[in-house]
């Protein structure tokens, strides 16, 4: 039996249209817009001025505070302006606009193709390198990696878990990376292990990527302490707590972190970025993005410079199909719908999914028939129907007791509900309100 998490979960159609499409390098765009907040934490501080010439890989915004990170120019050229832009969340934020001139990289970056597996740096040096290189969790959470690797005193980590699950439908960026950059990823995992001072790492991959499982399993013996595990195909297998439960059968208590059960989870894409940062001196200036949708003439996986407008990727994939009704950054279950294609690719952009008009709307909402399918679907065993009702009625104290803040917004409940009820919309509202209440209480 394949390992998985014990309760809940759904099986959306996989639609991995681009599973066989090798990663293609997208031409350097004519211009980029690089937002200063691409991670969880405080926005980085811009250190360049309008008119400055910057090289590819040069720091353009510096980390501010511990939970923050550096941001680098992904192209060489002139800083056009520093202005606000609407990012994927739909909110405005500051971005550095750069007009490309050639592609001149800073000379510390090793651009050759050699794979360096030998680890020279110490734990602290690796962690510092992650901060300097602007590495964040590339699975979508975008939590700064150096923070995750810094184990606070009193906590202990004994095993590193690596997330190669990619449970969202459509997305194949991690899948391709595992197939094409296996040794780099495994070296990255060794680096992460070194940083955390652990002897063991487990890589979890959903069983629908059997080729990736066998590829990494074949390479693993060269990398001491790493084992590869196929996991049952079930959404949200890639959620941190669900992955931990599946791989090492530890349950992260409500409101706590993986470190509280002695582990840290990193994504395979992050492991690759760490490899490049530490072994090649290359900051996070590009990432693999899946561009997909059934109506696209040429869906694919692209290596893209950060800050490239979404429109460029869609053009590369054959242009925007007539029937497009929705563009999602990320996967269809947790991704964000965007309203215009000038939104830039950021560190957290794992995919661009185009849905046709007839799949873009929602079904008509009808009465809750109390079928309990939303509870069955929730991997956390939350009672979504109840949380929705409580949020709707404004009964936030009760919602807090029913653990609304545990909700990870995976969307399985709304996905399942036969009455088309917007469960997660209301739960989000309730969750935000309850978190505010909790913060206010803490201030008193």
């Amino acid at each position, binding site marked *: 039996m394949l390992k998985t998490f014990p309760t809940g979960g759904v099986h*959306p159609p996989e639609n991995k249209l681009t599973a066989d499409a090798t990663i293609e390098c997208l031409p350097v765009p004519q211009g980029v817009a690089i937002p200063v907040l691409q991670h969880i934490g405080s926005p980085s501080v811009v250190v360049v001025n309008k008119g400055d010439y910057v090289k590819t890989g040069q720091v353009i915004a510096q980390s501010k505070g511990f939970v923050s990170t550096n941001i680098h120019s992904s192209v060489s050229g002139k800083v056009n302006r520093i202005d606000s832009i609407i990012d994927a969340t*739909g909110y405005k934020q500051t971005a550095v606009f750069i007009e490309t001139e050639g592609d001149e990289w800073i000379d510390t970056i090793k651009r050759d193709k050699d794979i360096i597996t030998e680890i020279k740096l110490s734990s602290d040096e690796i962690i510092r390198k992650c901060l300097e290189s602007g590495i964040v969790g590339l699975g979508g959470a975008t939590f700064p990696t150096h923070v995750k690797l810094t184990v606070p005193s009193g906590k202990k980590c004994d095993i590193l878990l690596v997330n190669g699950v990619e449970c969202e*439908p459509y997305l194949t960026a991690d899948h391709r990376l595992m197939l094409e950059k296996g040794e780099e990823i495994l070296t990255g995992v060794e680096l992460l292990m070194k940083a955390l001072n652990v002897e063991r790492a487990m890589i979890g991959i959903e069983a629908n990527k059997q080729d990736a499982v066998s590829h990494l399993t074949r390479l693993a013996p060269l990398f001491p302490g790493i084992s590869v595990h196929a996991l049952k195909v079930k959404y949200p297998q890639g959620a941190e*707590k669900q992955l931990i*439960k599946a791989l090492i059968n530890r*349950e*992260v*208590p*409500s409101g*706590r972190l993986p470190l509280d*059960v002695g582990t840290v989870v990193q994504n395979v894409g992050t492991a690759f970025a760490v490899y490049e940062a530490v072994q090649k001196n290359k900051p996070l200036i590009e990432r693999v993005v899946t561009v997909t949708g059934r109506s696209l003439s040429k869906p694919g996986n692209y290596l893209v410079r950060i800050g490239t407008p979404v429109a460029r990727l869609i053009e590369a994939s054959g242009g*925007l199909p007539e029937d*497009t*009704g*929705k*563009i999602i950054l990320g996967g*269809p*279950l*947790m*991704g*964000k*719908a*965007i*309203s*215009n*294609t000038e939104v830039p690719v950021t560190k957290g952009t794992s995919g661009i*999914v185009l849905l046709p*008009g007839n*799949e*873009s709307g*929602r*079904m008509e909402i*009808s*009465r*809750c*028939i*109390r*079928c*309990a399918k939303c*509870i069955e679907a929730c991997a*956390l*065993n*939350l*009672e979504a*129907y*109840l949380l929705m009702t409580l949020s709707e009625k404004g009964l936030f104290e009760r919602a807090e007791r*029913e*653990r609304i803040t*545990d909700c990870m*917004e995976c*969307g*399985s409940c*709304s*996905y*399942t509900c*036969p*009455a*088309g009820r917007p469960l*997660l919309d209301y739960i*989000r509202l309730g969750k935000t309100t309850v978190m505010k209440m909790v913060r206010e209480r803490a201030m008193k």
Partner: protein
Amino acid sequence: MNNILTVSPSPHAHGKETTQKLMFGVVIALLPALFSSIFYFGYGAVIVTVSSVLSCLIFEFLIQRFIFRKPITITDGSALVTGLLLAFNVPSNLPVFIVVIGSFVAIAIAKMTFGGLGNNPFNPALVGRVFMLISFPVQMTSWPVPAGLNTGYTDAVTGATPLAIIKEGLKNGESLSQLVTQIPTPAQMFLGNMGGSLGEVAAAALLIGFVFLLIRRIITWHIPVSVLGSIFIFTLILWLINPEKYADPLFHLLAGGVLLGAIFMATDYVTSPMNPKSMLIYGIGIGIITVIIRVWGAYPEGVSFAILIMNAFVPLMNAYIKPKRFGEEVKNG
């Protein structure tokens, strides 16, 4: 770019399950029992079923159209299911006017006065049935004996159900070993060859429906298995104590409305609990109350009452019995 892009919060995908599909799934699961019922009871089964379904749909339509003045939702299939289940719970020779009254009580009183689908605390079909049983006790307990496809509607020969035979016999001081000759064999009961309400008799057909409901993931096993399991265990204990006085567990499972109740009535979404833990408690409650009524109560059959009684506890269970949530009181060894 000419496309108008929809922007809505995640998730951007839906599992394609709908209320209507679930309800029609229940209808499909009821078909084997309906066919066997027609096979045993003839035209009567058809007339009663059609009139029950039609009157349920019409009452729902009229109330939504003229009283609620809200969009009509009779196509969601819920009134259809109620109509079928109501018919399944009555004798196949029941006069149409009683069926119509029962449908009225089920839809207008038990369902719509609470606001319609999703809000009613009690199973509408069962409320309708119990109302008819109390108002028309004679008609509601004259059970046609199976006589085949060509049985007329009103000229059906009636007889007692196996449960009634046992109940009467025991009251008159007979022992089970004497009574056993008067009731159908377990094999006959399994196939449905016995007196009873039109949808409850064919155990085999109901079990086919059960398997379908499970495979189609319309219901989970918790309620049916806990109802049947608790009835089995409870009656087994009684039977082991005194087999002359208490019927065997197999008889209790096959006779009367246990299977229909456990599989189709107790599992009604709206009136049953929301999480597995409560479902088991609810099911066991139904099982125990059923046996108590059957063995010591005034009526030979107690499934309907048992379900209605447990329905009353559902809001309480939903409020206080919680599933063990992920990350709650965890022990990591």
